[in-house]
């Protein structure tokens, strides 16, 4: 419990978000990579992994964010919080935009299909969008933590 007192409610929420990103990335990539290596990246398997990843995220969010907001005092955001939030959203937005442009290029030029590694299917696009979400969320959390820690 002493650990919780050293961090503000907002900072704990950001840490929890970052840990969620790490857990989801670890689960997702540990399931995806063997399929890619063995050339078994079929739609059914992919859909199952994506669904499990989303379910894990929801369960984690309910328990962890619920616990943090129950055990620590919730604080109203002030101007400093909003400034750091904006900075983090800027980074997150840049990551999302660059990734989406890359995804559009992939869809248009489809190099994956050209080398005949795999079909560029809807679940595959869902997988790439999930990776983009993870990247932008991690970028957002890291930027916020960097700003909060740098000023203490």
């Amino acid at each position, binding site marked *: 419990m002493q650990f919780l007192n050293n961090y*503000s409610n*907002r900072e704990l929420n950001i840490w929890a978000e970052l840990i969620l990103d790490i857990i989801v990335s670890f689960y997702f990539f540990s399931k995806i990579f063997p399929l890619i290596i063995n050339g078994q990246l079929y739609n059914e398997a992919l859909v199952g992994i994506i669904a499990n990843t989303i379910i894990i995220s929801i369960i984690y969010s309910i328990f962890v964010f619920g616990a943090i907001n129950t055990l620590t005092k919730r*604080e*109203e955001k*002030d*101007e*400093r*919080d909003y400034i750091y939030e904006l900075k983090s959203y800027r980074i997150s937005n840049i990551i999302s935009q660059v990734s989406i442009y890359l995804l559009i290029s992939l869809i248009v030029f489809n190099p994956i299909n050209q080398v005949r590694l795999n079909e560029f299917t809807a679940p595959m696009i869902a997988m790439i969008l999930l990776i983009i979400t993870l990247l932008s969320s991690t970028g957002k959390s890291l930027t916020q933590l960097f700003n*909060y820690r*740098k*000023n*203490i």
Partner: protein
Amino acid sequence: MTQVELAEKANVTRQTIIALEAQKYSPSLELAFRIAKVFDVPLEEAFQYN
């Protein structure tokens, strides 16, 4: 006055007061006026530009 009391009166978080004291954060004009009002001093007495 404690950091918590000042934070409550100026309507900001304690972390913001810590950052202000450590000169790691420049407040908005509005917050600067609020803090000066809490101490009942003019703005230029509460804050100085370095």
